């Protein structure tokens, strides 16, 4: 620790350690106020929070910007009105709702329905289509989620050690005033939600649902756990390390297995994964494993979003 611990120092770290030792109540007020607005330390030129910007008086805006904003709004309003009128007019003339002769229900859809179950092995034709016929989109899909996780991690994860310590302090504050109702409800609900989520993921190819919805359900359960029992409890397992480990594992498995199935498909080689007995749990070739991989990516990313927004660190 380069910084020696000056006991009566004003730095937050010192005051936090003093708080731990003496539990001085007046300090609590100070802690909450300061911690709540973490100064944007990691910005190269931090704007001191104690000097908030004076609100820009209406008069200060030059005539030029005021005219520009009014013009912009007028054009934007006209543009959106024109676009939506045009779209409503075209939709009215498009093939009508729900009749079987629409051009969209052509031989491609017929093939997906008729021999979807035999070729992909999945009873739920939508999952079969997503993870086998048009698997390239879904590969792109989980990488959209991964990109969003990277961007949010880069934006919201507090950088320096002091900040993390401040946020730990903030968490300790909130841990103390956990309310009983949420905790008891969570103790009953979370196992149910987790079970339902696992069911939806594992039975993705047999009943409605699949990797995305099941992952989101489990993500919601993890968020409820974080809310109910605070980050101390959820920090034991759900940390940045597990997030990294799980998303690396799931995403690399996903892209490698899909690369394998694309390569074998293109060169007409027989792929190792056969459809197996239709209806079993692990029957539709790669689909259940892909569902699990996508489920893991989705649930940890959704939890990471919430944790990063709430306390700046997973």
């Amino acid at each position, binding site marked *: 620790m380069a910084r020696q611990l000056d006991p009566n120092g004003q730095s937050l770290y010192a005051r936090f350690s003093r708080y731990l030792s003496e539990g001085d109540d007046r300090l609590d007020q100070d802690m909450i106020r300061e911690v709540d607005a973490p100064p944007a330390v990691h910005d190269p030129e931090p704007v001191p929070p104690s000097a908030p910007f004076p609100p820009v008086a209406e008069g200060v805006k030059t005539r030029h910007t005021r005219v520009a904003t009014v013009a912009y709004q007028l054009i934007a309003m006209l543009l959106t009105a024109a676009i939506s009128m045009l779209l409503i007019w075209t939709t009215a003339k498009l093939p009508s*709702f729900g009749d079987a002769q629409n051009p969209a229900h052509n031989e491609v859809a017929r093939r997906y329905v008729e021999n979807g179950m035999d070729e992909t092995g999945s009873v739920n034709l939508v999952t079969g289509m997503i993870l086998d016929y048009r698997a390239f989109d879904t590969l792109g899909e989980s990488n959209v989620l991964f990109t969003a996780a990277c961007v949010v991690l880069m*934006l919201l994860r507090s950088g320096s050690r002091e900040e993390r310590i401040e946020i730990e302090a903030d968490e300790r504050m909130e841990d103390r005033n956990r309310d009983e109702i949420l905790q008891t409800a969570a103790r009953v609900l979370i196992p149910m939600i987790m079970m339902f989520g696992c069911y939806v993921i594992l039975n993705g190819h047999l009943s409605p649902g699949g990797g995305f919805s099941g992952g989101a359900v489990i993500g919601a359960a993890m968020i409820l756990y974080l809310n109910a029992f605070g980050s101390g409890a959820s920090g034991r397992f759900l940390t940045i390390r597990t997030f990294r480990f799980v998303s690396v594992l799931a995403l690399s498995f996903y892209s490698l297995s899909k690369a394998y199935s694309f390569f074998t498909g293109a060169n007409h080689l027989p792929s190792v994964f056969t459809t197996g007995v239709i209806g079993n749990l692990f029957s539709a070739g790669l689909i259940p494993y892909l569902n699990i991989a996508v489920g893991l990516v989705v649930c940890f990313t959704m939890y990471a979003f919430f944790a990063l927004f709430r306390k700046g660190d997973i």
Partner: protein
Amino acid sequence: MILTNYAEIAAMILFGIGLMLLLLNKNMIKKIIGFSMTDSAIFLYLAAKGYISGRKAPIVTDGVTSAEAYINPIPAGLVLTGIVVSVASSAVLLALTVRLYRKYHTLNLDEITDRARKGEE
């Protein structure tokens, strides 16, 4: 045509409202809700196009695999992918809003631009 396509027309009205919210409103949170609404409108339109009246959901029940029994599965697949794309983009937009608010203490995008320009000089 108007009477049969009521779901699609409602989707397009929702698209118009969402686009207007996204472009006209200056508050960042309103823009994000507007953006999510535009995406939901497009997915409502797409799923409505996949629907065939009198047919069931595309899950093979008791071995019936004739095409006349199920609706078109492709739009359902596309919308499934689309919903997660729209959540990912809203998460990034919300993260940017939090960072902007922490620095400029306002949600109004024009005010932020003024403060950024004033802060720079």
